[in-house]
């Protein structure tokens, strides 16, 4: 089952061709300066992005940022006004959806209501004129992969939301697609099932490590959990792209810092470079030391970026940065405490494990953070 992702270029191939081509390697996705526009409104603006074979890349961004349109352009549901889309070594820009050899899963499952589960999964194989034997073999295999083998005879209406989404994934995988496109696949599920489905998709990708996945979501937890790389879109542009942990730890701009993980971003000035990739800036009337990950020039203005969970109310070392402020609000969230601190004209959020005695709103509080946990982010909001 693993490592059997099809590379064949044609859309309608007999099963024998599918099996033969399954031995070949995985395919990536390439956006080359892709622009999508409806009338005068540009939805995706000169998007250039590469999804390497076998990777999961998550596209995240606020509503209307163009992430779903970018995915739909790969599927062939929208036609780019400019640029090229490549799957594997094929330019698919002008190919119809049925000729692209992709698997797709959408938010509302889109199962065919008049077909049983097994017929839903077999749909793509039949559309490609696969032989009866190949279908008989492949359908249980795919249903087994998502733990739905015993539901083969049921109709979609007889399944729960999570089960329907598993069938949708099995249906997409049955055709051995070159790439799998997931368009907010878990948004319609409740929180608990969503968490288990995230684990399920992760497990699925470990089973099929050569499967290339483009995953569009507005849920950053899904993106952080599943993706090898994350792209952040805003107003049709890709404003940040990078390896998941790297992007989280060292966001390239203020928008990426705030959107991914809601980092504290404070204006700073007079950056002074020091040794070992570190630098110092003046921020909120104090000097803050941190990583100069982006190699900012001395004297330039920038933002100080520090994650809420990296802030502490007790110093771990003498050299730790410290900022004093006034507690504005304290919110108990069960497994953590969310504290908002007023520092000059800015606010800082910190999350702490539940404390024996939580600070009172209005009281003075000093927070500490290590230089290694601070990133200096260049000015600019990530727009072109």
């Amino acid at each position: 089952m693993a490592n059997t992702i099809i590379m064949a270029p044609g859309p309608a191939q007999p099963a024998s061709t599918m099996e033969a081509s399954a031995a070949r390697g995985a395919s990536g996705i390439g956006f080359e300066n892709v622009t999508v526009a409806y009338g005068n409104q540009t939805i995706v603006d000169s998007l250039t992005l590469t999804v390497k074979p076998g990777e999961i890349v998550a596209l995240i961004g606020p509503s209307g940022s163009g992430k779903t349109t970018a995915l739909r352009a790969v599927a062939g549901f929208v036609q780019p006004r400019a640029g090229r889309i490549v799957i594997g070594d094929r330019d698919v820009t002008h190919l119809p959806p049925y000729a692209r050899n992709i698997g797709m899963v959408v938010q509302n499952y889109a199962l065919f209501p008049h077909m049983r589960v097994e017929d839903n999964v077999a749909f793509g194989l039949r559309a490609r004129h696969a032989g009866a034997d190949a279908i008989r073999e492949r359908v249980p295999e795919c249903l087994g992969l998502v733990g739905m083998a015993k539901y083969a005879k049921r109709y979609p209406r007889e399944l729960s939301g999570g089960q329907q989404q598993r069938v949708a994934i099995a249906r997409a995988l049955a055709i051995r697609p070159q790439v799998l496109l997931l368009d907010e696949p878990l948004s319609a599920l409740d929180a608990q099932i969503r968490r288990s489905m995230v684990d399920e998709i992760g497990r699925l990708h470990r089973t099929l490590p050569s499967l290339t996945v483009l995953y569009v979501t507005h849920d950053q937890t899904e993106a952080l959990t599943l993706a090898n790389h994350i792209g952040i879109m805003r107003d049709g542009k890709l404003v940040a792209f990078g390896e998941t942990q790297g992007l989280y730890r060292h966001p390239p701009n203020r928008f990426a810092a705030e959107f991914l993980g809601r980092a504290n971003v404070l204006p700073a000035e007079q950056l002074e470079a020091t040794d070992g990739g570190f630098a110092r800036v003046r921020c909120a009337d104090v000097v803050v030391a941190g990583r100069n990950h982006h190699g900012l020039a001395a004297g330039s203005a920038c933002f100080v970026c520090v994650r809420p969970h990296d802030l502490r109310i007790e110093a771990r070392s003498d050299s730790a940065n410290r900022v004093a402020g006034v507690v504005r609000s304290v919110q108990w969230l069960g497994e953590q405490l969310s504290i908002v601190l007023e520092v000059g004209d800015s606010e800082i959020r910190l999350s702490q494990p539940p404390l024996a005695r939580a600070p009172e709103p209005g009281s003075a509080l000093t927070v500490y953070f290590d230089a290694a946990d601070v990133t200096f982010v260049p000015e600019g909001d990530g727009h072109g």
Partner: protein
Amino acid sequence: MADLVITPPASSGPARAADWRALWIAPPLLVLAALFFYPLVLIAMQAFTSDAHTFTLDNFATVLHSRQFLSGLYHTISIAVLASSGCLVLGFVFSLVIAFVPFPGARLVGRLIDTFISLPTFLVALAFTFVYGSAGILNQSLMTAFHLTMPPVDFLYSQWGVVLSEVTVYTPFIMRPLLACFSQIETSQIEIASSLGARPLGIVRKIILPAALPALLAGGSLCLLLTVNEFGIVLFIGAKDVITLPMLIYDKAIQEFDYPTACVIAVINIALSLGLYGCYRAVVSLCGGRRAALD
């Protein structure tokens, strides 16, 4: 113990209210009986009554063996089946285009269809005589262009003219429920089918058609019912040798004053219509239930 027993009054309030409600139902029932059921009963009585004013089935035996009636029945059924089939094909294709092929003015076309349903049926026949009639635009143009002495297109005054007119009139009756049905199909289902390798015709056959089947069956049954009883178009076209059951009733009653025969044919026509209506209701309830189950 005896103190606790409360004897209800002989006539309770709700029961009296029910009696009054029954009185409200009586007037409309009387009007319905006077205007609808009584004339129908008279027709049925006439059909089953002999000249000697006794019950008889001889009238039916005579009518059922007459070539004129059998020809009328054949024309009625064949025209209804052909027209309904034409309506189904044309209505399905038109609805597909309007619903799934985006083009400017699609909404306007949808509204025009609604308007068409409200027009009298014979107007189409009248319009067709202007276009396809002996002295219509088409024939006049062809005669002028090719120096012909006789009009070359004369299908209008045949069974096919009636069928074409009925198809034109009743296609919107198919399209209305179909368009409503198509609006319920999720675009994502069609997109996913396409991404899985299904071509447009395959999507129509495997996704859209099964979803549209209840609407097609209901619309087709309704069309069959309406075309079986169509009178205005057949009369207006005046097609030679095309006599349907409603036309035959008209001829017997109004032209020949043969009321017993007209009543016998009317009873048969009513039985045919009620049978078709029963089928229509069965299809609607069956498909309605199935649709609800699918949703």
